[in-house]
């Protein structure tokens, strides 16, 4: 049975799209047939992060409005088998997404895929609510910073009330915390909320911790999800995250200041 997972946060710029792209890629690399859907109608960006922006012909809204079939709109990833992208529309009409339309598409995708990842837009408006409405699980992306944590808590409230699972009194949406842009040295100096602070305030299970990393910008510059950069800290952290999502027990990494070896200190270039 396909799992629908929403990647959400409330606040913008915390790494939702980066995470949706990286986790989807990781799932596909593990052999899971995965589709990632961009729900940010009007401001699509997932296509850029996935590096398929020049292959977009039809989009989510085209499919909902019946102007194209689902198979015409799905873009097959060039790097990994089993990975597909459904881009958002650039239309400015916010009402282009309908609940019935989204439900129809998700039902159709469920037949074919193991994982359906919904990349939510920022905010708590229609697009964000539709992205989470049908979800079985939610990955709440949070930066160690006050406004992000507060907004994540707001999103947790919505996940518990404005989703199909909540409205129909089914099992609640399974909530996972994904902390991104974590900087262990700033945590050590007392200028950044610790992992445990965030966990304690939001009181949900930690799925993963992604360190602040130069690899992330490098990945988005190139349109290659950071999971492919297997040598990088962020790439490895996302791979761990995917393993945990698949139910494996992985020890936490990158949450403490890395001690550089002598050779690394002498010859090591930029932090990876």
């Amino acid at each position, binding site marked *: 049975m396909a799992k629908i997972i929403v990647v959400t946060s409330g606040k913008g710029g915390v790494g939702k799209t980066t995470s949706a792209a990286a986790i989807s890629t990781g799932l596909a690399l593990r052999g899971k047939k995965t589709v990632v859907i961009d729900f940010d109608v009007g401001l699509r960006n997932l296509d850029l992060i996935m590096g398929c922006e020049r292959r977009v012909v039809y989009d989510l809204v085209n499919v909902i409005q019946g102007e194209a079939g689902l198979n015409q709109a799905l873009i097959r990833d060039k790097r990994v088998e089993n990975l597909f992208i459904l881009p958002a529309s650039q239309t400015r009409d916010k009402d282009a997404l309908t609940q019935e339309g989204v439900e129809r598409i998700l039902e159709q995708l469920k037949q074919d895929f193991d994982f359906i990842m919904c990349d939510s837009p920022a905010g708590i408006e229609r697009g964000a609510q539709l992205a989470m409405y049908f979800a079985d699980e939610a990955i709440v992306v949070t930066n160690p910073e*006050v406004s992000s944590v*507060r907004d994540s*808590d707001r999103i947790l*409230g919505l996940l518990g009330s404005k989703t199909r699972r909540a409205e129909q009194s089914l099992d609640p949406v399974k909530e996972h915390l994904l902390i991104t842009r974590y900087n262990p040295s700033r945590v050590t100096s*007392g*200028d*950044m*909320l610790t992992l445990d*602070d965030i966990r304690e*305030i939001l009181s949900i299970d930690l799925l993963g911790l992604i360190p602040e990393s130069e690899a992330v910008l490098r990945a988005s510059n190139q349109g290659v999800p950071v999971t492919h950069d297997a040598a990088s800290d962020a790439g490895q952290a996302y791979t761990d995250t995917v393993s945990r999502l698949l139910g494996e027990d992985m020890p936490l990494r990158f949450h403490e200041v890395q001690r550089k070896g002598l050779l690394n200190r002498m010859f090591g270039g930029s932090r990876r």
Partner: protein
Amino acid sequence: MKLLEFLKRERKKSASVAKERLQIIVAHQRGQRGQPDYMPLLERELLEVIRRYVQVDDDAIQISLDSEDNCSVLELNVTLPKS
């Protein structure tokens, strides 16, 4: 030495200040979570009515809705100033 300690303590503070502030605001948000959408408006209008008779501060009114088995209880607490 004293100065150094002082500076160090100041630097340590920002993350713990953030944590304290978040704990308060998140507790407040969670208190409002299950409540109906009309509660903030109800609270504001009740405050207006009370102010027609007594001058009270914004935070002098506390309103909460508790659901028990088959009924809901709307609790209203107003702290009146000493006259």
